[in-house]
């Protein structure tokens, strides 16, 4: 049985001055929740657009349910991809958008859509162009959930949603996914928030896939060792170091490796502290490690913190 439902082969998307996708190879299997993670502009939306035939690759192949989605009703009818900047007809209210979706998705659940609208306190009879950013996101989230399409993409669905609404979305997603298994691709840069939902993680950076692994596998794949700098460095000599931080004579070093039982005991005997690395930290470290020299790394990081502060 081949249950691959999304396959990208050597996908390249070239814009005038940048490679939005740089030789992407990907294979996703049915009925799982995928996280498509990466920084803004990393290529997440481009990849999803090409898979759903909303945009075109410069070269390479994108297969969904074994065929190209382009002008292919048999494939398209099983996909839902409401983009983060989704546009709606000028006179449309959320209720009109939902009734439109009902025309095209055979598994559309109007009752579910109504309940979700109530949960999100969405004014279904207000013109969409008058909605706030969060309410606009809610419209997309509701269409994505209630369409129950076999392959559903959520493109940074939480923009403008408050913490309560975001939690509601995550909860409803998990509940509905349990009752109606399907393949969900959740693109996000709020990694910690979605980490627990994800079964498989794909990290994209500058158009390249830099991580493609099961969430379980990733959770134990790295460790942070802290203690006296000298001892830490001796203990970790020769290992794949992702990140190193020092404070006086203390060091905290993240390694991209699994420690064996005896190594853990050894570390404890040396008085070193071992702590797990969150998915978000790991993605950040790997993204930065892949960005090139240490000098530019710190530059990038400074930019990020600056951005975060604004």
């Amino acid at each position: 049985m081949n249950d691959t439902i999304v396959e990208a082969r050597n996908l390249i998307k070239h814009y005038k001055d940048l490679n939005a996708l740089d030789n992407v190879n990907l294979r996703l299997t049915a009925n799982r929740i995928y996280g498509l993670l990466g920084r803004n502009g990393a290529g997440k939306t481009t990849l999803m657009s090409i898979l759903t035939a909303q945009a075109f690759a410069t070269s390479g192949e994108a297969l969904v349910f074994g065929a190209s989605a382009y002008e292919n009703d048999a494939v398209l009818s099983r996909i839902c991809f409401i983009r983060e900047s989704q546009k709606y007809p000028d006179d449309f209210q959320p209720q009109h958008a939902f009734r439109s979706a009902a025309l095209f998705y055979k598994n559309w659940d109007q009752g579910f859509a109504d309940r979700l609208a109530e949960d999100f306190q969405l004014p279904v009879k207000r013109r969409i162009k008058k909605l706030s950013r969060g309410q606009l996101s809610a419209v997309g989230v509701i269409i994505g959930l209630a369409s129950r399409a076999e392959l559903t993409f959520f493109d940074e669905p939480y923009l403008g949603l408050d913490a309560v609404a975001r939690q509601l979305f995550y909860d409803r997603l998990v509940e509905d996914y349990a009752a109606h298994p399907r393949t969900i691709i959740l693109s996000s840069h709020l990694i910690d928030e979605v980490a627990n939902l994800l079964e498989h993680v794909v990290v994209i950076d500058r158009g390249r896939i830099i991580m493609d692994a099961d969430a379980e596998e990733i959770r134990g794949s790295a460790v942070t060792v802290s203690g006296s700098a000298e001892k830490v460095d001796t203990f970790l000599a020769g290992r794949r170091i992702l990140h190193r931080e020092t404070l006086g004579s203390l060091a905290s070093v993240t390694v991209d490796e699994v420690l064996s039982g005896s190594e853990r005991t050894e570390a404890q005997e040396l008085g070193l502290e071992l702590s797990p690395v969150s998915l978000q930290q790991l993605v950040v470290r790997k993204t930065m490690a892949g960005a090139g020299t240490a000098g530019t790394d710190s530059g990038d990081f400074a930019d990020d913190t600056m951005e975060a502060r604004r």
Partner: protein
Amino acid sequence: MSRTMAVARMQLINKWTYIGWPLTILAASFLMSLAIFALIPVTEGKNGGGSQAPLWYFLVLGIQSMTLVFPFSQGLSISRRAFYLGTLGLFSLIALGMTVLYMVGGVLEKATNGWGVYGYFFNIPWVTDGPWYSTAAFFFVVMMFMFIIGFWFATIFKRWGTTGTLVSTLGTAIALIGIAALTTLFQGWGHVGNWFAQQTPLTISGWAALLCVVLAAGSYTTLRRATP
């Protein structure tokens, strides 16, 4: 096929866009024209140009179906073909309905001697002079033309952005001016005038229909590679 139909139905979910607003615009324009006709104390036939008002709205609808409805249809994973056929089908349906309305209006207008105030809104000199089918064809084609030209320009915009729109608009203008210049150079205006004098509303409709077909085909080719 069912998805094509669904595209048309989707755009009728909000009845205002394609039915309510055109009728409101027509009614408002009609009532205003009537008021003006009534104020002019002349017992000869008075003609107004108010019946063209909904046409400009159709131009806007043509543009919006491409700039807003197309991206939405992509979000619902509707193929470009289904979107195109469904939208064009809807245009035709609305143009047909409006044509019927204009024809009925024209008949009533004649029967009531210009609504009792000698004002002619639906009857337009030359256009409605011929047989009924010539008038109907003219109304229908002109309405389709407005939709399609809006749709066509918006497809250009979607595909090639502001530059593309500018180039195609300027290009069209330059081509027209070029033709006019050549006509002057070869002293051909007499022939052009003769040609136009020979046209009837029916033949004009024919030429416009031909142009519609060309533009519609052009839109489809452009739309095939357009992204939301």
